[in-house]
């Protein structure tokens, strides 16, 4: 099975900023991403948990996208511009996919 090297970007971001983030992803032409919910966490801002929350103000989501390695810098630059004002963190790792032409 032919595997193609990609970058896996994972952005942990506070939920209210999600719409902004997806707009940025669209702008830098990352058209594929998946959002996973987080249910609790801890950071410099202290612990949080979704239990019983009515507002999304404190909860985080995790946005995952597989992109072409060559595009890493042009993608994480604008994301970082958003994330640095908000609560959130970006990580990048290596991954391989099938059907590499789709990314």
């Amino acid at each position, binding site marked *: 099975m032919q595997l193609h090297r990609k970058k896996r970007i994972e952005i942990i971001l506070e939920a209210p900023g999600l719409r902004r983030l997806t707009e940025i992803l669209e702008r830098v032409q990352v058209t594929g991403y998946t959002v996973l919910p987080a249910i609790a966490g801890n950071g410099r801002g*202290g612990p949080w948990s979704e*239990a*019983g*929350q*009515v*507002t999304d*103000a*404190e909860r985080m989501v995790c946005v995952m996208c597989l992109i072409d390695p060559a595009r890493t810098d042009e993608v994480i630059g604008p994301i970082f511009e958003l994330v640095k004002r908000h609560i959130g963190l970006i990580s990048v790792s290596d991954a391989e996919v099938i059907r590499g032409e789709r990314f």
Partner: protein
Amino acid sequence: MRYDAVHGNGEGEAVNLVDLAVTNLLSPVVLFFALGVAAALARSDLSVPEAVAKGIALYLMMAIGLKGGVEVARQGLTSTLILTVLAGAVLSFAIPFLAYAILRFVSRLSAVDAAAVAAHYGSISAVTLAVAIEVLGRAGLNFEGYMIAVAAVMETPAILAALLIARRSRPDDGLSRGELLHEVAFNGSVVVLVGSFFVGWIAGPAGMKPIAPLFTDLFRGMLCLFLLDMGLVAGRGFARAKKALSAPVILFGFVMPLISAAIAAPIAAMLGLSPGGAMLFITLAASASYIAVPAAMRLALPEADAAIYLTLSLGVTFPFNLIIGLPLYLSVAQKLAG
């Protein structure tokens, strides 16, 4: 004559206020809030699933909106409507400036943190409103249906005020103001409150009847469930409060609702609202937002510390209003409009 009456049974009324406060304290709604707080402080793992809490919040706002709309359909539009809506909007916009000034004077909160907190106190709390309606129900009092519209109108201006305040102290962030305003104005809680109000108005008492078993009969029971959840969340916030909140800030959380109430009460009297309507108007002014404004602040002022405004609004001011504020506002409103 009113003067005489007040003095005539001054003692009787003092008793009356204590009575009101005790009845309030022993109502299931308040008891379930206390249960939630106690469970959280005892570090119990009791919790309401997030989806259920959000579902009940949605239900409560639909029920409130419908009730207000049906009342307007029943009572018709009175002449004070527009004045009351205007007064609400002005209050919501003005209170944050006052709150900001107080906060900066008494505490060491940064300008951005103080602006974010101030926004919460200008806006309104739908849950406090829900409990106030329950208290009115218990007291057998009616209210002007359009108070729900007033509530909806008061959600947003406070956010604008906070943005104006904060702009003075921080560089522009290049965020589109228009988009932010759109997000604030079409916040889910605003839309469902206003929308249900119009649904209730259009459908009227006849249209309301078949859905009353859900939206009227279950209202108070649902409020119990919701307040259990609020108690749990508030109680868990207390642990963090020690770190996030200084003594003057906590004090602000107790005193600010009284200040807002003191401003709103004479306005309610001037507007000629009924006792029930006046009580709701004072409650709206005195309550601090917990749903719409926090979400808006994460977008508009992300530098502000969420732990401060969430804990203050839910952990200090909400219980204060629940236990002490509401009976007080009711007795004031009864005197004003009696």
